[in-house]
C-alpha cells in the first residue's frame, strides 16, 4: 500500500502559511513515495552493485540455471529499476542512484558476463541449424549478441538520459578485456562508447531489413529486441538522432508479417530462424512477460490487445501454484519462477492492478521473503515442487532480486512514462539533496516541484540506528528566500540561524531519526 503522509502535514503547512509566509500549499502526499519494501529492494540492489567485480554472491553461480548464467539480465534489470526509482520517486536525490546504476552497468563488461558470447557466436545445429560449429568471434558488440548489447544499450542510455555526465560518451566507456591463457590470440581489449553501441545496433536493424537483431547467429528472439529499441529511444532524446523512430514502424510491420505473436493464442514465438524464415515454438510466460513489459512502451496497442489472452492463460496458473506442478529438467527449473516474475512485471507495467497485487502477495507469502540489514528480497530457493496447499516456493535470483521488485515499483506504465518524459538539462539544475548518511538514513521521497519552487523530501530511519543526522540541500536559486518546513511546521528560513548556507551555497538540514519526517524547502515569495 502506498504511503499516506497524513492530513496533519497539510494542515500544519496551511497554518504556517497563514502565519505570514507567502508559500504555496505543498503536500508531500501529492508526490510519489517509496514504501518500506521498495526501499528494501533498492537497498538490496545497492549492496549487490557494491560487491567487488567478480563477486556474484546472491546473484548466481548455478551455471545450469538460465537466469543465473545470463547475469547481464539481472544486472541490466537492476540498473533500470534503480533508474526508474531515480526518475519517478527520488529525482532530487542522486548521489545513491548514480553510482549504483554505473556499477551495475560496468559489471556487464566483466568477462564472467560476456565471455559466454564466444561460444554462442559459434552457433551450431541446436537452434540455428547452421551446421557444425562455426569459427565464431570474440568481440561481444561488433555483430549480433543483442542479448548482451541490447541490455547494455538500454541501461547505458537510461543512465545517460538521467545524469548527462558524458561518462558513456568516452571511447572506452564499455571496455571488454579478454585475457585468454590456453587458447586464442593473446589478450585483446574491445572498447566501445554508448554512441558506438547505438550506431551498431541501429545498423544491424537496417541490415536485418528490420526483422530484428540476432542473438546467436541465425536466431532472433522477440524479447531481446525490445530493450535495444528502448535504449535507442533514450539515446535519440539525448543525441538528436532518429534511430528508434526509424526502427519502430518497420520492425512493427515485420513483427506482424513474420508473426512474432501467434494470432490465435497471443503468445510470442520462441524465436525466429533467419536463414529458413521459420517461426519456432512458443516461449511461455517468461518470454511473453519479458517482451510485452518492454514493448508496452513503444507499442502499447499491441500489448493491450494480447494481454487479456495472456492473463487468461497464465494468471490463475501462477496464483494456484499449478505452474510448478510439472517440473522441467533441473537446468530449466528457474524458468518457472522467471515466468512468474516476468508475468508480474508485465501485469504491473500494463496496469493490471489486481493481478499485480495478487502476484506480489503470493511472492511475499511463498518466496522466502527476506529482510536483512535493511534489504528486502526473495532469497534463491530450489523448492519448486508445490506444497500440500499447491504453492511453489522456488525462486531464482533474477526474479528474487529484481523482477518482483519491478512489479512492486511499477504501478502501471512507469517505464512508458519514463521514456515519454526524459530528463533535460533543466532537471539537473533544480535544487536537490546530498550528503545523506546511507546506513542510518533512507530517503523515501525527494522531488522538486518547479511550478511551486518546492523541494519535497521524506526521510526515515535506515537499518543502522542513529539519533540525529542531516542532509544538504544544493542548488537553491540565488536571490530566492526559502522557507523550510518539517512535517508541515516552519522551522526557519534559509539564511537564518542554523540554516545558514555553507561556503558552497548548500544548506544543512538537521534531522531527528525518530521516525518518518517530511521536509519542504519552498520559495517564499
Amino acid at each position: 500500500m502506498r504511503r499516506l503522509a497524513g492530513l496533519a502535514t497539510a494542515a500544519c503547512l496551511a497554518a504556517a502559511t497563514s502565519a505570514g509566509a507567502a508559500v504555496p500549499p505543498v503536500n508531500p502526499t501529492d508526490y510519489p513515495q517509496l514504501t518500506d519494501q521498495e526501499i528494501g529492494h533498492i537497498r538490496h540492489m545497492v549492496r549487490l552493485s557494491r560487491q567487488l567485480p567478480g563477486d556474484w554472491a546472491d546473484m548466481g553461480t548455478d551455471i545450469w540455471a538460465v537466469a543465473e548464467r545470463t547475469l547481464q539480465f539481472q544486472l541490466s534489470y537492476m540498473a533500470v529499476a534503480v533508474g526508474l526509482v531515480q526518475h519517478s520517486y527520488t529525482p532530487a536525490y542522486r548521489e545513491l542512484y548514480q553510482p549504483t546504476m554505473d556499477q551495475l552497468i560496468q559489471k556487464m563488461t566483466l568477462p564472467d558476463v560476456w565471455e559466454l558470447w564466444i561460444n554462442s557466436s559459434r552457433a551450431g545445429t541446436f537452434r540455428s541449424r547452421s551446421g557444425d560449429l562455426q569459427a565464431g568471434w570474440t568481440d561481444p558488440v561488433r555483430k549480433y549478441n543483442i542479448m548482451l548489447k541490447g541490455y547494455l544499450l538500454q541501461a547505458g542510455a537510461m543512465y545517460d538520459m538521467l545524469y548527462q555526465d558524458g561518462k558513456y560518451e568516452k571511447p572506452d566507456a564499455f571496455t571488454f578485456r579478454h585475457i585468454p591463457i590456453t587458447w586464442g590470440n593473446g589478450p585483446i581489449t574491445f572498447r566501445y562508447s554508448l554512441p558506438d553501441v547505438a550506431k551498431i545496433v541501429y545498423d544491424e536493424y537496417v541490415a536485418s531489413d528490420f526483422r530484428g537483431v540476432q542473438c546467436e547467429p541465425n536466431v532472433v528472439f522477440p524479447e531481446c529486441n525490445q530493450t535495444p529499441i528502448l535504449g535507442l529511444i533514450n539515446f535519440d532524446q539525448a543525441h538528436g538522432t532518429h534511430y528508434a523512430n526509424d526502427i519502430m514502424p518497420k520492425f512493427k510491420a515485420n513483427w506482424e508479417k513474420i508473426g512474432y505473436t501467434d494470432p490465435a493464442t497471443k503468445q510470442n514465438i520462441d524465436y525466429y530462424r533467419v536463414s529458413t524464415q521459420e517461426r519456432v515454438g512458443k516461449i511461455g510466460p517468461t518470454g511473453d512477460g519479458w517482451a510485452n513489459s518492454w514493448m508496452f512502451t513503444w507499442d502499447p496497442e499491441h500489448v493491450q490487445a494480447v494481454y487479456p489472452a495472456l492473463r487468461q492463460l497464465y494468471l490463475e496458473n501462477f496464483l494456484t501454484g499449478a505452474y510448478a506442478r510439472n517440473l522441467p529438467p533441473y537446468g530449466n527449473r528457474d524458468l518457472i519462477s522467471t515466468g512468474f516474475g516476468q508475468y508480474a512485471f508485465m501485469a504491473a507495467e500494463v496496469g493490471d492492478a489486481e493481478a499485480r497485487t495478487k502476484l506480489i502477495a503470493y511472492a511475499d507469502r511463498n518466496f522466502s521473503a527476506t529482510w536483512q540489514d535493511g534489504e528486502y528480497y526473495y532469497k534463491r530457493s530450489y523448492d519448486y515442487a508445490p506444497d500440500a496447499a499447491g504453492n511453489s516456493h522456488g525462486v531464482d535470483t533474477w526474479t528474487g532480486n529484481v523482477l518482483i521488485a519491478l512489479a512492486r515499483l511499477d504501478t502501471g506504465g512507469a517505464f512508458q512514462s519514463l521514456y515519454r518524459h526524459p530528463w533535460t538539462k533543466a532537471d539537473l539544475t533544480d535544487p536537490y539533496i546530498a550528503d545523506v548518511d546511507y546506513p542510518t538514513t533512507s530517503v523515501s521521497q525527494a522531488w522538486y516541484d518547479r511550478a511551486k519552487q518546492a523541494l519535497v523530501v521524506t526521510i526515515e530511519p535506515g537499518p543502522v540506528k542513529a539519533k540525529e543526522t542531516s542532509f544538504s540541500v544544493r542548488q537553491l536559486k540565488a536571490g530566492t528566500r526559502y522557507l523550510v518546513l518539517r512535517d508541515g511546521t516552519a522551522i526557519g528560513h534559509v539564511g537564518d540561524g542554523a540554516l545558514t548556507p555553507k561556503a558552497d551555497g548548500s544548506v544543512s538540514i538537521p534531522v531527528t531519526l525518530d521516525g518518518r519526517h517530511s521536509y519542504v524547502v519552498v520559495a517564499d515569495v
Partner: protein
Amino acid sequence: MPFRPRRRDLLWAAGGLALGAAAARLLPPGGDELLRALAANPAFLADHPELIERAAAVEGARRDDHESARRRDAMAGTWKSAFHPAYSPQLGTPDAPLLLIEFTDYLCAPCRASAPDIDASVGRARDVRMALMLVPVSGALSDYAAQLAAGCYFTRPPGFAALHAALMRGGEPTQERIDAAAAAAGYDAETVRAATAEPVRLYLDKARRLAEALGLSGVPDFLGESGRLLTGGVSAAMLDDLIAHTREDSNAKENRRA
C-alpha cells in the same frame, strides 16, 4: 554445453603457447634456427610433452610476475599516498620499513576468521606496518562498521588497534557490539561519525577504487610491497611467507641501490 578440452586440445594449445613464447622471448639470439626447426617438425613437441608443460609453467610464472609488477607499480605510484598513515588506518609497527596492505570488511567471515593469525604474524614482525583498506561489501552494517572504524582512526589513531581487534574478534557484529567496541576503545560513535564524514568518504572511495584497479573480486586480500598478492582467508604461516618475501624483495632493492 560446457567446453571440455581433450588432452589433444590441451597439447596443441600449449604447444602453440610454447612456440609463441619461444619465438617472442625464450630463444637467445640465433634461436631463429631452433624456431624454424620446431615449426617444421611440430611432432617433436607432441613427442616431448614435458617441454610443453615447462613452457606453460614459464608462461604462467611470467604472467604472475607481470601482474605483481603491475601491482607494485600501482602501489609505488598512483596509489602511494593512500597507504600513508595520514590517509589510511594502520596496524603493526609505526614507521616500520616494510608495508603490507590488507583489504578487508568487518562483516566478512574469512576476514574475521583470519584476524587472530594476522595479529600473530604482524605482531611478530617488528619491521612491518599494515595499511588497512576497508572495503565494505556486506550491506549497511558493513558500511557502518567501516565508516566508524575509519572515523575513529582519523580522530585518534592510537586507539584504533584495540577497536579493530574488537571488531574483528568479537561476536557476530551488530550495531550494539560495534558501538560498544568503539566506546571501549574511547570513542563516541555518533561524535566520530559526524566529525569525520568527509575524510572517511574519501578514504572508502579510494579503498574501493584501488581494490577494483587491482582486479580484486572479494575480501580479504593481502598485498606486499613486492606486488605479491594473497587472496582469501590466511593462516599466520601464509602471512609470514608474504612478509618474508616482501622483506627479501626490499633487501634486494636495497642491495641494488647500494
